[in-house]
């Protein structure tokens, strides 16, 4: 760190303009301006830290509580656990993993989420490619029809779908949840990917087509490699939504504990032991661990992927 940070070129600085035209002006008012800048940028930093802190407080509270003994959780606020004497324990985690069958629920959530993510993203990628780069009658109407289904609340598809799934005998099995999540995820996925794919330069596809490359080859050897960031961002969204879904699992899997995902197991505990905080703390924290890992793991792609689609649209 240099001794005079405000003098070094800084992209966020509104003082150290590299433009020669304003050089004299900047130099003339540099002392006052620098003072104002240092003041306002530290005020800004303090403000941002404050917002970040406020946003984190509820989560921090849960995290601290999850390491406190049940009696302490019931009798004092989590913030009192921060001061000595400390009584931290991993008992809550042990109890939940062993006794509540949460381990099984975690595995069930994985079994539901992985196909529930891959299937819609893949099918949406196929469809989005055709909507973006092929010409066929009714293209725009079919596309708009699919996008419009984004508005269908889960509740609306439940009963007809339940009837259909019962008729073909897949209710209560993972297959029913995979199919339901695929249908529910497709409208948004098609919408998002079509705007990503449509933003790619058209020369790319024209030259490939002149070279005689088939759509299958263009899709796999040009489109997919170029779209890794956007696909990754969609994968994170879809994974988080399926992982965090409560309603679809409740309806199609029923109450059976051996297939129930984490969200169902935790919601059951909230409803039946409303004051059982020690169970809730560690269970909730375990359920958020994996989505957080996925988010941090793919964060770089996430931001860049969104940029590609949302800006060029």
């Amino acid at each position, binding site marked *: 760190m240099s001794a005079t940070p405000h003098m070094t070129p800084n992209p966020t600085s509104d003082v150290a303009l590299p433009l020669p035209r304003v050089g004299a002006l900047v130099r003339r008012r540099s002392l006052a301006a620098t003072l104002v800048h240092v003041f306002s940028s530290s005020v800004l930093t303090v403000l941002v830290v404050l*917002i970040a802190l406020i946003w984190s407080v509820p989560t921090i509270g849960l995290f601290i509580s999850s390491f406190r003994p049940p009696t302490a959780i019931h009798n*004092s606020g989590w913030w009192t656990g921060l001061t000595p004497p400390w009584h931290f324990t991993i008992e809550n985690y042990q109890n939940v993993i062993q006794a509540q069958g949460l381990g099984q629920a975690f595995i069930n959530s994985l079994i539901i989420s992985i196909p529930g993510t891959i299937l819609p993203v893949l099918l949406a990628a196929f469809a989005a490619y055709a909507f973006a780069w*092929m010409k066929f009658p009714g293209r725009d109407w079919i596309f708009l029809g699919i996008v419009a289904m984004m508005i269908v609340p889960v509740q609306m598809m439940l*009963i007809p779908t339940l009837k259909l799934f019962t008729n073909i005998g897949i209710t209560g099995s993972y297959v029913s949840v995979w199919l339901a999540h695929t249908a529910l995820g497709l409208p948004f996925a098609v919408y998002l990917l079509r705007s990503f794919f*449509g933003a790619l330069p058209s020369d790319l596809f024209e030259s490939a087509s002149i070279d005689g490359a088939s759509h299958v080859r263009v899709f796999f050897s040009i489109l997919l490699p170029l779209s890794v960031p956007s696909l990754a961002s969609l994968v994170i969204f879809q994974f988080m939504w399926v992982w*965090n879904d409560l309603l679809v699992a409740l309806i199609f899997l029923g109450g059976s504990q051996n297939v129930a995902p984490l969200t169902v197991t935790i919601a059951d505990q*909230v409803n039946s032991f409303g004051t059982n905080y020690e169970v809730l703390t560690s269970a909730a924290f375990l359920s*958020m661990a994996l989505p957080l890992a996925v988010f941090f793991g793919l964060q770089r792609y996430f931001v860049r992927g969104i940029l590609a689609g949302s800006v060029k649209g």
Partner: protein
Amino acid sequence: MAVAVPQPVAPPAQQSRKAPAARRDKFFAWFWIGPAVVFVGVLLFYPVLDTIGLSLFNFDSSKFVGLQNFHLIFTNPLLLQVLRNNLLWLVVATGGTVLLGLIIAVLVDRVRIESFAKATIFIPMALSMTAAAVIWRFVYAYAAPGEKQIGLLNAIWTAFGGQPQAWTADPKSVLLNNLLLIVTYVWMWTGFCMVILSAALKSIPTEILEAARTDGASELSIFFRITVPMISPTIAVVATTMLINVLKIFDIVYVMTGGNFGTNVINNEYWNQLFNFNQFGVASALAVILLIAVIPVMLFNIRRFRIQEAQR
């Protein structure tokens, strides 16, 4: 099953010039869109038609009743409250997430700890609604006066001399109950808006901002005259996503209050009518109201989408 009513579409002028490829596309495109069309058609579009039909029949779908279910919804005070709550959600939750997301995105853009700050705002997005509900029970928890408050809000409230409040669960303060649930939603979804809007901010050329500052424009007028207009397409995308999301709000209400204490919303009442009361007619009518409420949003998007298409 077709997804939209098939409409004759005028063949594009250049189709004859690109004859061989275009003719092949006409046929092969269906292999590419087929699976998506089948999934959406069978599992989403068919239920929509079914629901619209059911909404015109009585509770067990045995008798045609016309618009009676809608009449009931719009005259029953409890159901009217449900509609009002959804409207409150629509305005406050959508406005809250988009505005806060925009403000935070602009603020973190100008500090060195940007990625750290963004991560803390985004974390709630990665949580399940049930986990979030657990977290917020810790904030809103209530204990009788005189007892030790283990809820953060009541601890702060009583520290400043207030009486402990049954946040979200006081039947006398319906508006506050709803707003407290909305706070939970805003806490969760602001990060989503912030990340997308922040990405859009990065695309504004720095030369434009620097030129404006050189000309003596204030930060506030830069925000309203340059930043907001330049990222308005992205704001539209984010706002649309939030509108649709909020219209369908269910989890937070279901887990935190179950719709009690005057906090019921359409989707939660749909659930009640369907699975607790077996009132298929009224339930479907509620769902149809959601469907209708979202048509203007879709029309706006269709228009926006067409303008984009024309510019490509």
